[in-house]
């Protein structure tokens, strides 16, 4: 070693390095590697690690093998019942056959520009055959699987596996949305009116019941009161009858006297008397003889 001239040693080391750099290459976990010899595919590595190739003669191309996103701008579809829907869907895909993909598309961008229309066609084909209700709620996940299966077939020549298709948005077009808003408002107004009317209905019912209760309570009280009064009057009669029954004639006399006294109160009462009356029996006549 030490006999070798220093510059020569440097040159040798650099040359070896250049060869190493040109023959060894690292395949990352995120990509597959394709090795071409003057354009002719020679090798394909889908696993990561340190790989080798013939220096200078062979070249390497890396193809992404991750789960990638495929997006399309929202498209308006016409569902089976002629209703329109704006659908925004995306697909997740993986390049499983890098060589096939490279041969048919070269780069990921080109591949996606071919997959995009396929995705759109699949969406139209599947969603056009069902109703809006089915898309929105009833069979959404099933329809997404159907779209995936459909695009899987058309994507196979690209060496691509469609992992999943998801409907990101499925909305009504603007004009239809306005109609929905109006309907919602109408529904709410109706509901509000119903609440108010029901409130009045119940309130009236409660007030009427209260009024009835008032009348009932008073009437029952009146009934009871009349009974009490009647009983008292009856008792009064019984007491009187028991007392006065002893001598009806005297009672008539006694009661008449009481009545005179009560009825002929002093004041404005004026009386015309005959001197022949019982009161004046002795007025003209000492013996009290009747004239």
């Amino acid at each position: 070693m030490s006999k070798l001239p220093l510059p020569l040693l440097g040159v040798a080391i650099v040359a070896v390095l250049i060869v190493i750099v040109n023959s060894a290459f690292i395949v990352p976990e995120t990509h597959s590697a394709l090795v071409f010899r003057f354009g002719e595919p020679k090798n394909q590595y889908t696993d990561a690690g340190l790989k080798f190739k013939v220096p200078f003669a062979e070249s390497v191309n890396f193809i992404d093998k991750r789960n990638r996103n495929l997006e399309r701008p929202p498209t308006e579809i016409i569902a089976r019942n002629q209703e329109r829907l704006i659908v925004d869907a995306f697909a997740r895909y993986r390049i499983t056959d890098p060589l096939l993909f490279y041969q048919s598309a070269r780069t990921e961008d080109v591949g996606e520009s071919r997959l995009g229309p396929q995705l759109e066609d699949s969406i139209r084909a599947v969603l056009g055959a069902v109703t809006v209700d089915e898309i929105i709620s009833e069979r959404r996940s099933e329809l997404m699987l159907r779209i995936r299966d459909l695009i899987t077939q058309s994507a196979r020549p690209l060496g691509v596996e469609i992992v999943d298709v998801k409907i990101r948005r499925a909305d009504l077009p603007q004009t239809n949305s306005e109609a929905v808003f109006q309907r919602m408002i109408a529904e709410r107004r109706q509901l509000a009116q119903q609440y108010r009317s029901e409130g009045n209905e119940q309130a009236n019912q409660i007030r009427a019941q209260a009024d009835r209760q008032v009348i009932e309570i008073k009437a029952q009280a009146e009934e009871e009161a009349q009974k009490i009064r009647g009983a008292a009057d009856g008792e009064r009669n019984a007491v009187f009858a028991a007392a006065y029954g002893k001598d009806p004639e005297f009672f008539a006399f006694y009661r008449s006297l009481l009545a005179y006294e009560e009825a002929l109160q002093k004041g404005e009462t004026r009386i015309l008397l005959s001197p022949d009356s019982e009161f004046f029996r002795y007025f003209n006549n000492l013996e009290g003889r009747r004239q």
Partner: protein
Amino acid sequence: MPWQDNSGNKGSGRGPWGQPPRNGSGNNDGGNRGGRGGGEPPDLEELLQASRQRLKRAFPGRGGRGGGGGAQLSKPIIGLGAAVVLGLWLFSGVYQVAPGELAVVTTFGDYQKVSGPGLHWHVPAPVQAVRKEPVLDVRDMNIPSNDRRSGQLSPGLMLTGDKNIVDIAFTVQWRIKSDVSAVEGQSMPGVAQYLFNIDEPEALVRMIGEAAMREIVGRNTLDFVQTDGRLQVAEQSEILMQTALDSYNSGIQIERVNMTLAEPPTNEVNEAFRDVQAAEQNQATVIQNARQYTNQVVPEARGQAQRILEEARAYAAERTADARGQAARFDEIYTEYARAPEVTRQRMYLETVERVLGDMDKIIIDEDAGSGVVPYLPLNELRGQQGGN
């Protein structure tokens, strides 16, 4: 000699890269050391270049001292230099993983292992490489991201199962999965999947979140989404998101989905909704008023009824007592009368008439005295008449 100093430092356990270069020649060497001090593994070419420069420095030093025996002296020095270089290279593989981080080690790009927090060593560059990811950092993502602008429809509008439209906003909290070893049936742990299996994780979470939330909202009614079902809708979409992300082997863990908004789509519709609430309040109020009315008039009526009854009882008490009193009085008088009926009768009559006529204006007319003739004209009576005129 600089490297001897360096090796001496090494022996005393101090980090060689912490020291500024002793020879301070300001060449590439210093720059490289600085770079390594930052934890970046040096690449092979740089290392080789550095060792060549060490050799260059070694040879002139020897040449300056003495010509002849230089070749013999340089051998151990070269060996020592190589050892130091090797030591430095090996040391560059030391790396530290902070708490809450996981480090993914690759050998020539090939996934090797995941190491947790602590001090570790990997075969230095270019053989192995390390990437650290904060796996416990929970990231928030607001969907829809942009604020609502007035005059435009909200981007969070979605159709419900009963074909209404609701305005939804929600927050997804997510992080990288923190398992150190691979789950059964998987080739690598979550953090490695996160690095190697997906591109643009943020965009992925956003899209999956939108799709999942719309799917769940599409399955439910407007009322449910807006009121009782908010929590349930969030939970279900969280499950749906996690399922999708797991099926992509994305290594993403959804921590929580929070619904921050579930409202009617436009101000106009919102007002209609508010009016319903107002109507409910109105309903409660009029019913309450009616109850209040009931509570007022019924007790009043009961009071009145009580009054009617009491009045009747008072009447009864009064009338019966009066009757008994009168009867007793009659009884007394009758007892007296029975003893001497004739006399008592006369006396009673006269007494009564006396009392009755006593205070009265009296005109006594004798029929026998002839018509138009007044035998007695009481003076007081005439005076009373004149006074009246």
